[in-house]
């Protein structure tokens, strides 16, 4: 097994051993396999790409080929301890609906995404007047799958609107540096290239 990417390792650190985990947009299954093999989780995945689904199946993982935008509503409530949405929220058609579904399906929800509020992104627009192309966001404006990019501040607001409690917030940088961030200050939204949030649905009254 190859070394896990820093952001995936940070996600893995949030997951208790033996829990039931759904990884939405699980890619080739690297994170899910790690979770199953090292933490003994009962892991399931959803993935859009046929090639990636085959890669997951060959790893012995249970993965459904499907779409977060259309398929999540078919899942019963509270069947997973943890639901993961890693680097995928910005590619969904209705991120707020997807988030509401994740909070419903899982006890806790982990969401990671690239931060569109990072200073390089801002500088690209301010000084060049061009849509930003960075290491984390390498596409042209016309071919990007990232149709709903957001900043850390945007996401914090959306999470509040979804009635979610932010249990933990981590700032992510390209060199693999992961550290806790204070979302009540302006710093992380300017300096972090990405973010990982651990959310929990507020108990219904």
């Amino acid at each position: 097994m190859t070394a896990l990417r820093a952001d995936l390792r940070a996600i893995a650190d949030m997951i208790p051993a033996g829990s039931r985990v759904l990884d939405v947009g699980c890619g080739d299954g690297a994170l899910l396999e790690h979770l199953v093999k090292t933490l003994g989780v009962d892991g399931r995945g959803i993935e859009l790409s046929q090639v990636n689904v085959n890669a997951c199946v060959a790893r012995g993982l249970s993965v459904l080929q499907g779409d977060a935008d259309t398929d999540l509503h078919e899942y019963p409530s509270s069947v997973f301890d943890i639901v993961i949405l890693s680097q995928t929220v910005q590619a969904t058609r209705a991120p707020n609906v997807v988030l509401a579904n994740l909070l419903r399906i899982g006890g806790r929800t982990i969401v990671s995404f690239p931060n569109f509020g990072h200073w390089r992104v801002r500088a690209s627009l301010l000084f060049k007047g061009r849509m930003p192309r960075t290491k984390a966001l390498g596409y042209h404006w016309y071919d990007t799958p990232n149709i709903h990019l957001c900043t850390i501040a945007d996401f914090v607001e959306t999470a509040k609107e979804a009635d979610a409690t932010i249990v933990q917030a981590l700032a992510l940088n390209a060199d693999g540096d992961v550290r806790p961030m204070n979302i009540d200050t302006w710093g992380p939204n300017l300096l972090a290239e990405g973010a990982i949030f651990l959310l929990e649905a507020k108990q219904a009254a």
Partner: protein
Amino acid sequence: MVEAVDPQFLRPLAAQNVDRGRAMTFGADKPLTLDSGRQLSPFTLAYMTYGALNADRSNAVLVCHALTGDQFVASAHPVTGKPGWWETMVGPGKPIDTDRFFVICTNVIGGCMGSTGPADIDPATGKPYGLDFPVVTIRDMVRAQAMLIDALGVDKLLCVIGGSMGGMQVLQWAASYPERVFAAVPIATAARHSAQNIAFHEVGRQAIMADPDWNSGNYQLAETRPGKGLAVARMAAHITYLSEAALQRKFGRSLQNREAVSFGFGPDFQIESYLHHQGMTFVDRFDANSYLYITRAMDYFDLAADYGGVLAEAYRGAKTRFCIISFTSDWLFPTVENKRVAHALNAAAANVSFVEIETDRGHDAFLLDEPELFAAVRGFVNAAATVRGVA
């Protein structure tokens, strides 16, 4: 009493020097109790095996065939001499590797390739069963297979796999005998036969029964053969196995050996000629009454009905690992039907993967050269074998 016998075929053999497989007859003490309430006894199941059963009997894979399939998965068909129907999938080094796995395939009960069916002699009358043969179901087919697996000394199958009606048997196996199925691969199938599919089957059956040579099902005694009716049934069914796109790509409006249309009703178009060929060759290898019975078994299939209408209940507590596969252009068993099964399994917290293969070749794709299908099956079966500790 269970007795090994030589498989008997209804049709003359085109290929004499091929492996004709094996058969087992279950005596009066081992009747097959059917869903209809009737019993079939004695009865025979014809089967083929490939590869070798390992010492701890953990590497057996059961392949279930489709409506017009048979036990000759990976070796020449003795009646037609043609290659096995799934040689791309099963064999040495193939996705289901017979160097590693012991593959079993039985001709379904009601079939016409050596297993007891309507063309066989009814011991009560000394005449062919014809329509006196009891109506069988998918569950009856699976019950019979389970008896054969017992006789072969296999307690738990590593994997049960099949497409179309074969996939129905896979779903039934996992529901009826969850503790005997380690992994299951239902391909291009459904947990219930749709109204549209029942409708197409009825067209086929009516074509057979409208043939004067069918003689109310007693054509063997009358020494006739309802070849025309059976050919039409096959032609109608064959269209449902393809897709509009594939028909257009393969045939379009191309004419058959002529420069212009003939202003008559001969086979002007290549697609007509192709369908005629499909119908004619089918008649040489298949029994008309078997076609009635097996299509009926598919029509009756509704797995959820046995579990209060809730499909998830069929798989409550299931430990079996599932890999469900569908094809984008399959309109006979469309993705949505396959996904229904996946969602039910999910709701039952079963281990399930679902793969949708992109192809324009329709339902038939499960029998064709589809690299992503092979990759999915190879990966899944090998992973299951590793988890089960098969060397």
